[in-house]
């Protein structure tokens, strides 16, 4: 490849760490997120090893509390929330809309530095001694009783929140203002609709978390009882404020995945996404209704029955746009020319796993059942089906799909399919037994359990081994591909999106001439030049 691209433009460290190129910032985020993913994953591994036997044999209960807190905090704020938006989104959004960069490139770089500052602060809290509150920082434990690094960890999450806000702000403005000529809203690929909806949540929910964490830190530092019942403070108020952010945050952690799946399903069945406008508006509906369901985390907290009924009802409502998406993806497959390439395997896995996660979410939205399942492994299994089965699977799918664009290289299709299948089976083996454990009453956040639960726990830990191996595999074959893979053409999947109209990898400002859009997205040609079999 003789022409200059964003990777070969300059090789100095400075050209990476002071870059304002959205593609390089995406790579910076990508590298950082791999690091955090393995830290969070290490904690998960330790948890599953401990739970292989009913007794406490690896860690004490105090260490165990710190392990699951570390796993939750790192995975939620330092992997899942930034995962698709800040890596794939950062890279693809300007390309998809035919722009030369995001609206505010320096703000984008600042966002990465803020993220790293928040990440390092949190890592300091973890390695200095850890946090034992769980990722939810519930009061009054976090403010009065916990003898761990709560303020430092809260500061880390607080700082990282500003990185989320800046990224969301940048995406909103970019999608509004920098679309190529002719690229109307209904010609936008659905990935952009879902990232737009995600950004709205990032901008409107994250500041509430920020102020809540500030109150927690103030209460701990000054010893004043903001949420302390002894002076009339209300611990439930903390839960309301926390979940006002953290439930919408669940949609931050799934909407981008849904967006990726639109692109994959459409490409590998060579068809337009069925019911485009419904899918587009479903993203915004999820974002909007998602702000009104937080109380379903608090059914057993003592909130009023009326509140519980309303939150239960709203939680059923939010399932409607989610179901629209699942049905429309399925309808897209109908009479499609389906190719089971690795990204498509991930997309299909996403549909199945997200459906299980979503349906069990409806179980939990039922007041009567939720009382039984609260704080059991049923809840743990449910949200892992959404976040890991959904978001992480979509992340891997999108990563493979856009890999040739990002690196200019093709990966080994054989290894990619193998990893996809292993992830699917490993994931189900890890988390499906947890539904059963939860239904039988095993509570979460304990490291010892009655011996009758051991069978399902052993299965779960065995699945986790498969899952861990499967998650490590891309590190090798994608790592190999990045340096030694076959060169990718500009448009290896014969896809119509604007990101495929420029070379792979794209040049510095993405396009040599300003693209102009004249038609709806997903106008796939049925002949798929399915080429890359082996690198």
């Amino acid at each position, binding site marked *: 490849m003789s022409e200059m691209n964003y990777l070969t433009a300059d090789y100095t460290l400075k050209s990476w760490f002071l870059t304002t190129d959205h593609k390089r910032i995406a790579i910076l985020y990508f590298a950082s997120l791999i690091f955090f993913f393995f830290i969070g994953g290490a904690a998960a591994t330790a948890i599953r090893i401990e739970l292989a036997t009913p007794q406490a044999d690896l860690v004490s209960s105090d260490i165990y509390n710190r392990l699951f807190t570390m796993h939750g905090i790192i995975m939620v704020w330092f992997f899942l929330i930034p995962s698709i938006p800040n890596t794939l989104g950062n890279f693809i959004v300007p390309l998809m809309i035919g722009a*030369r960069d995001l609206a*505010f490139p320096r703000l984008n770089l600042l966002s990465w530095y803020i993220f790293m500052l928040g990440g390092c602060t949190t890592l300091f809290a973890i390695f200095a001694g850890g946090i034992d509150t769980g990722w939810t920082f519930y009061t009054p434990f976090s403010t009065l009783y916990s003898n761990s690094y709560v303020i430092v960890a809260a500061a880390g999450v607080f700082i990282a929140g500003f990185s989320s806000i800046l990224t969301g702000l940048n995406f909103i403005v970019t999608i509004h203002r*920098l679309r190529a000529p002719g690229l109307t809203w209904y010609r936008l690929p659905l990935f952009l609709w879902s990232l737009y909806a995600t950004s709205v949540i990032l*901008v409107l929910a994250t500041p509430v978390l920020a102020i809540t964490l500030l109150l927690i830190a103030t209460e701990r530092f000054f010893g004043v009882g903001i949420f302390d019942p002894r002076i009339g403070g209300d611990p439930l108020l903390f839960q309301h404020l926390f979940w006002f952010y953290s439930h919408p945050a669940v949609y931050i952690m799934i909407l981008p995945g849904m967006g990726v799946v639109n692109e994959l399903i459409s490409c590998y069945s060579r068809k337009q996404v069925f019911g485009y406008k419904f899918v587009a508006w479903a993203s915004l509906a999820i974002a909007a209704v998602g702000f009104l369901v937080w109380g379903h985390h608090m059914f057993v907290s003592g909130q009023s029955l009326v509140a519980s009924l309303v939150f239960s009802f709203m939680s059923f409502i939010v399932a409607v746009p989610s179901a629209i998406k699942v049905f429309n993806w399925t309808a897209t497959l109908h009479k499609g020319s389906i190719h089971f390439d690795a990204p498509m395997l991930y997309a299909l896995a996403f549909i199945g796993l997200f459906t299980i996660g979503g349906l069990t979410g409806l179980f939990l939205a039922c007041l009567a059942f939720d009382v039984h399942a609260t704080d059991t492994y049923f809840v743990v299994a449910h949200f892992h089906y959404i976040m890991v089965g959904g978001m992480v699977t979509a992340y891997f799918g999108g990563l493979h799909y856009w890999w040739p664009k990002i690196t200019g290289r093709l990966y080994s299709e054989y290894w990619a399919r193998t990893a996809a299948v292993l992830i699917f089976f490993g994931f189900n083996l890890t988390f499906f037994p947890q539904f059963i454990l939860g239904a039988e009453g095993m509570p979460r956040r304990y490291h010892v359990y009655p011996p009758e639960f051991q069978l399902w726990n052993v299965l779960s830990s065995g699945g986790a081994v498969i899952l861990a191996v499967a998650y490590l595999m891309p590190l090798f074959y994608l790592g190999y591909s990045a340096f030694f893979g076959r060169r990718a053409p500009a448009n290896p999947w014969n896809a119509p999106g604007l990101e495929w109209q420029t070379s792979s990898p794209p040049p510095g400002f993405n396009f040599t001439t300003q693209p102009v859009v004249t038609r709806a997205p997903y106008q796939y040609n049925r002949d798929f030049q399915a080429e890359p079999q082996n690198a």
Partner: protein
Amino acid sequence: MPESSAFAPQYASIPHRDHTAELGMWVFIATEVLLFGGLILAYLVYRHAFPQGFAEASRHTEIVIGTANTAVLLTSSFLVAWAVEIFSPDTARITTWLLMGAACLGLAFIALKGVEYSREYGEHLVPGIDFQFAGPRGNSIQLFFIFYFVATAVHALHMLIGIGLLIALAMICRKAPTTRHHTALHSAALYWHFVDVVWIFLFALIYLPGRSSS
């Protein structure tokens, strides 16, 4: 496409750049609304739970200083709005003075706030540092003062950032104002007005409860 020095390459024209920047500031203000919104919500929950305690606490705030500060801040917002209106290379001198005047009023606000804080410290009304209040409603009065200090401190931090922006813009306006600086000034002015509006809400929530009935 050749690199243009007038505007960054992701924009098509100067107006395109300017409108984009302005939208960015509006989105940022949306985020700020929710930041203060969460705090005000928490305040309202407790005020609803302890109406008499909050009314009594409010009567211990320095309403004279609070009112003077409101006037100071509104005046500074007026100066900034004036500077935005008349901004052009020909009016560089007066724009600089208007912005410096607004920044000085901002500093005056912070100084008055400092006086207010020190008086509250003298009256043992600072939770976590020195809080003593004899009487049956001591606890809810303490809750009120926690919110008072957190809200006014977060607001003062926003003020300091705004003062820095105004001084920087005043320096630029003195030397070489261009349309780019007009956009920067416009965005900074939006932010300054927002900080002002937050104060108006805080003023009503902090100083006014319980004043009419006693």
